[in-house]
């Protein structure tokens, strides 16, 4: 059972990564879109703590928090995000396409819902082989409206697969609020109808996320089938670097949620113990970024290889 310090460390590491990447992005040193998850850090921190290294994971463009919490090497990830030859995927993937089988990471993804089938398929593999590995797939509230995901819900229920659907309900899909995209905003009800057990938790409390995911993992390991978890949370920044996040939400709403930020909350709990952890993580991340920047760009010869194994 992880302690407050552990969750705090995960979350400040993630926050530090985002702060560094934001600086790079603003300085024009980062290619592509940067999808931040500030305010949502408790979900990856809590959820990944409930998984084993050999459990499978797929997540979204907003997936770097999970990737780090799952145990991937910080330096390899940062170098990949910077498109370096020595990055996790040799600069070919970028931050929306991180893979590391050693840690069960079967992909972050640029397509809404695109990695859900992958996770259910990994769970199928585990089920076929009678293993106790589980698969977790992470996505947002808006993703439930993508057809592929619904097909996967049904098959997970049908075969009783060891898969956990972790839905970060941050109330918005890009700039569109739940009420303007869901005929029924009760996400658990939507998914329960497939014959899937559902659960819900405060996504800004890493302990509750951890407990809820742990229950689902236990069920899955005991072949009791899939669980859908709705973790209620909020991103306090915009959808991505070019969105201030203010055009479609009131300042009050954002302020209320900023107060509920899991990092701030744990800081109160930890008191003076927090600061050295934060300082350590910030330094470590800053170092990772500085050293990554010095890494070589991929060699041109690499561009045309590795289409096929």
């Amino acid at each position, binding site marked *: 059972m992880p302690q407050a310090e552990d969750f705090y460390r995960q979350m400040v590491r993630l926050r530090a990564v985002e702060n560094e990447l934001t600086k790079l992005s603003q300085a024009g040193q980062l*290619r592509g879109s940067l999808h931040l998850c500030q305010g949502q850090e408790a979900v990856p921190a809590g959820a990944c703590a409930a998984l084993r290294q050999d459990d499978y994971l797929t997540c979204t463009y907003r997936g770097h928090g999970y990737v780090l919490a799952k145990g991937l090497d910080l330096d390899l990830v940062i170098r990949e995000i910077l*498109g370096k030859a020595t990055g996790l995927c040799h*600069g*070919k993937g970028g931050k929306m*396409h991180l893979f590391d089988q050693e840690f069960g990471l079967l992909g972050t993804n640029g397509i809404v819902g*695109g990695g859900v089938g992958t996770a259910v398929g990994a769970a199928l593999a585990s089920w076929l082989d009678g293993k106790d590995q589980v698969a977790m797939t992470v996505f947002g509230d808006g993703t439930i409206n993508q057809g592929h995901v619904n097909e996967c819900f049904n098959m997970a229920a049908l075969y009783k697969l060891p898969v956990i659907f972790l839905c970060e309900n941050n109330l918005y899909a890009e*700039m*569109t609020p739940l009420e303007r995209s869901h005929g029924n905003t009760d996400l658990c009800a939507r998914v329960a109808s497939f014959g899937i057990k559902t659960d819900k938790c405060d996504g800004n409390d890493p302990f509750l996320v951890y407990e809820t995911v742990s229950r689902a993992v236990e069920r899955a390991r005991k072949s009791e089938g899939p669980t859908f978890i709705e973790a209620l949370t909020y991103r306090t920044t915009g959808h991505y670097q070019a969105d201030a996040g203010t055009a479609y939400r009131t300042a009050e709403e954002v302020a209320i949620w900023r107060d509920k930020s899991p990092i701030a909350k744990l800081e109160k709990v930890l008191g003076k113990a927090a600061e050295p952890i934060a300082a350590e993580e910030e330094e470590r991340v800053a170092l990772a970024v500085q050293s990554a920047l010095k890494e070589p760009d991929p060699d041109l010869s690499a*561009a045309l290889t590795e*289409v096929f194994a």
Partner: protein
Amino acid sequence: MSEMTFVQAINAGLRQELDRDPDVFMMGEDIAHYGGMFRVTEGLMETYGEKRILDTPISESGFVGMALGAALAGKRPVAEVMFIDFTLVAMDQFHNQIAKTHYMSGGRVKVPLTVITQGGGYKGAAAQHSQMLEALFLQVPGIKVVCPSNPADAKGLVAAAIRDDNPVLFIEHKQLLGVKGEVPDGEHVVPLGKANVVSLGTDISIFSYSYCVTLVQQALEGSGVSGEVIDLRTLNPLDWDAISASVKRTHRALIVHESHARCGVGVDLASQIQERLFDELDAPVTVCAAADVPIPFAKSLEDIVLPTPERIRAAIKKVVHG
């Protein structure tokens, strides 16, 4: 004439058609209240209301299919798919439904719908957000495909697409969105199926479209080659007359595009040109396109995979000098 960006020009074209025909309406993700991820629909909801400019869930297959139904029921839907990469989740609706309906009905039913979308690389958006997939829409017959290269054409072609009684896919390029140009004020329609001779030349005919037209012009600059640059504008229907007239003038042809080479627009044109104009050719028709690999993230790699002025210039030289 007014100077405006590519995005503003499309917005103007959309307004022109929304004003003109009450049956025109739009649907897509974040297009209404937010004004569109790339601002193409900025302000439209305020003018036309939130039914005519309709925000949708993240359900491309669903709303592209709904556009078909609305078209069959007498409307002129314009659906936006935010990235062309996302058309892949709606491919059954495009290819099995939309593309075939007019023909399968024996011509009884018309499908006046437009899908506007945005594609292309050069920005580090990586493999799932950098594609140009126009060739996928050419292999299966039944959808017109438009790829504007400049703001004026963008306004006029989006208007023509909406007025057309057939399904039209209108593809913006992410590198062009902020590019400025002179755009005709007032009603402006550029007919589908007509190529544009960007520059006359005597050494070589270079066929291109979308952002690559810009790259071709950069490649020619200072190259000493007199290149005839033809902006195809519409890929289906093709302006074969313009293509063959140009080849007959220069006797050498190069096709430049950003999407992959295999089964792409380049080989399609190259094959047709050599098959129909074999005796006119002084050199093999050549294709300069993306390498047949997924689009890599790192800049050093993307620059090798996608056409650049340097690569295009090398291709031009090869065709002209052998």
